[in-house]
């Protein structure tokens, strides 16, 4: 590829890439218990995430609780300042934009929150909550605001006459609709949905999912859809990123990820989905992970997943796997595992080839050189 072609290629990508995260880190300082808070430490909530979100797509972001999904979302919405790395939105670096310059950008990036009870101020009327974006950005006259709010309420399936009610007068699903209406008010390009349905009754979850899908079609929205398991995300996402301990460990188009999960962690997540089809259910053993997720204060050396990985080998303890195509996958399917899972392999039957002393010492010869694609380990 010539330099010119490369530049061209970058341009082309930029036009279709709405959001680009490059090596984003977010560490929280926690005060120690020593004198004057000494002995503090850092929570590595997000630890080097690079991701692209393309215009019009839905990117699913999946991972266990505490793996840093919300933190990443908050960094993108600039609710947190990142520790390092950059956030590029529509080709513009917004990582350190001052609040004043950030305001217009905020119109384009909106969030929907997990807790429909916590995300609406109980002491304010719904009409004024939904009208907040107009009030803050001064985009509509007071008179027009009410009309616009009622349009929005209709758009998300709320009765516009309930304009003057309080959040307490609504059910969980309705409240989530209120949150959606508020996020839509400024016609954003992208909406980050942080577990928008996990607090809702199962019967209502589907309604909200459908609403989000309809809105996407109608308004050409781009979604980042966060969830802690794959069962919902697989149905709504074009691509899925799997997060573990502050890092993306696998990223692929949805079908590709579901059919050829390379990372053992992805396999574990997949095996946890309840399967309707009894044949498939039998076919797939559930992968039970050892232990809990380690503390993000001191993430494990080498591959972060090694203390729980069924395939862990001594090599994993010492060497950090890169996020790249494995086993001859296409460019858009990347995983960070030295011993990726091949098709047909059942990792539920495997056991790690490292023991405690190995995990600590990280001894043992590398069975593969870094980046070699080829057969699975095993």
């Amino acid at each position, binding site marked *: 590829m010539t330099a010119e072609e490369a530049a061209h290629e970058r341009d082309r990508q930029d036009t279709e890439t709405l959001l680009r995260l490059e090596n984003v880190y977010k560490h929280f300082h926690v005060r120690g218990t020593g004198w004057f808070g000494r002995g503090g430490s850092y929570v590595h909530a997000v630890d080097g995430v690079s991701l692209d979100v393309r215009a019009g797509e839905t990117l699913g972001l999946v991972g266990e609780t505490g793996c840093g999904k919300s933190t990443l979302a*908050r960094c993108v*919405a*600039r*609710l947190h300042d990142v520790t390092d790395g950059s956030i590029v939105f529509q080709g513009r670096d917004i990582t350190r934009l001052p*609040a004043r310059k*950030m*305001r217009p950008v*905020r*119109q384009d*990036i*909106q*969030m929907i*929150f*997990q*807790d429909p*009870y*916590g*995300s*609406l*101020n*109980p*002491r*304010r*009327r*719904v009409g004024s909550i939904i009208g*907040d*974006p107009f009030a*803050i*950005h001064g985009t509509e006259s007071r008179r027009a605001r009410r009309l616009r709010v009622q349009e929005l309420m209709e758009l998300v399936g709320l*009765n516009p*006459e*309930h*304009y*003057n*009610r*309080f*959040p*307490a*007068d609504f*059910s*969980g*699903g*309705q409240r989530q609709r209120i*949150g959606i209406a*508020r996020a839509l008010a*400024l016609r954003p390009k992208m909406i980050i949905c942080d577990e928008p349905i996990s607090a809702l*009754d199962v019967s209502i979850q589907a309604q909200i999912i459908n609403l989000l899908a309809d809105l996407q079609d109608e308004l050409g929205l781009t979604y980042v859809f966060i969830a802690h398991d794959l069962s919902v995300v697989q149905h709504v996402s074009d691509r899925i990123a799997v997060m573990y301990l502050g890092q993306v460990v696998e990223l692929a188009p949805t079908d590709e990820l579901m059919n050829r999960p390379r990372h053992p962690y992805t396999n574990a997540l997949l095996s946890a989905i309840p399967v309707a089809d009894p044949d498939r259910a039998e076919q797939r053993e559930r992968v039970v992970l050892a232990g809990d997720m380690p503390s993000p204060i001191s993430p494990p050396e080498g591959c972060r997943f090694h203390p729980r990985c069924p395939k862990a080998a001594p090599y994993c303890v010492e060497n950090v796997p890169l996020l790249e195509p494995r086993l001859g996958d296409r460019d858009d399917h990347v995983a960070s595992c030295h011993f990726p899972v091949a098709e047909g392999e059942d990792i539920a039957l495997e056991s790690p080839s490292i023991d405690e002393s190995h995990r600590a010492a990280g001894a043992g010869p590398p069975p593969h050189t870094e980046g070699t694609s080829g057969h699975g380990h095993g």
Partner: protein
Amino acid sequence: MATADPERAGEPEQEQDVVKGRSPWRLGWERLRHDHVAMAAAVVIVLIGLAALLAGVVSDLISHPPDTQYREIGLSPAGVPQPPDSTFWFGTDGVGRDVFVRVLYGTRISLLVGIASSFGAVVLGTVIGMLAGFYGGAVDTLLARALDVILSMPFLLFGVALAAVLGPSLWLVVGVIVFFTLAAVGRIVRGQTLSIREREYVEAARSLGASNRRIMFTEILPNVLAPVLVYASLLVPIAIIFSASLSFLGLGVPPGTPAWGVMLREAIDYYTVAPWLFAFPGGALLLTTLAFNLLGDGVRDALDPKASRLGRAG
């Protein structure tokens, strides 16, 4: 179950008769309205307020100014105060002044001190508490520590000492009460703000680009107002008692003022011969503090059933 969160009740969408929701304030008011004791107390407070407003009118009507000394008709030949009769309904005091009129005038000072100081404490305490809780960090450390220091100072003793330095006056009393009670308000508000700051709706406002000022006024303030209001209503009687106590020690409002604390102090010299001198101002004082406390309890139950109980030292 009684302990279930009322906000989560009615999950199945029971529609649609009410279009306009009732605000938490309205709901609180409706609860208060059905609290007979609190409403009775409110009526008493209104009457006390009327007495304060009409003290001048009444004194004109019976043509007994509060400071006139009726030495001929108001004192016995031996110079002893007169017991209540048809001329002097509450009797006369040591220099022959009409106790009834003076008790009426006393309502003015008590209400003024009570309301002005609890208002001042609430405004300042809310501002300080909100700033400390919202901004956190060094601002918070500084303000929270300052509140700690204020709370460690013996309240009444400092009031007394200040009166000695600056000379007794009504506004000094108000100032002292404000200074020493704003710390308690500030603590409550700071605690509330600290927890509200982390709520998702604040995060939502922030993600919309709301300024800090807007977040404090539209998101946080409405939520801290309920406990603050409860505290304010319970602060009124505390302020009234405090100011009466200072006056009783001779260090509150200047001697000679028709204030209940002053009258009670003057009554000590006559308490063997003229018990009405402390019965009437004392009764009025007790009635007022009782009424405010009863109303305050009602307000607390109506708005904020979990608010902490107040203490006071004497």
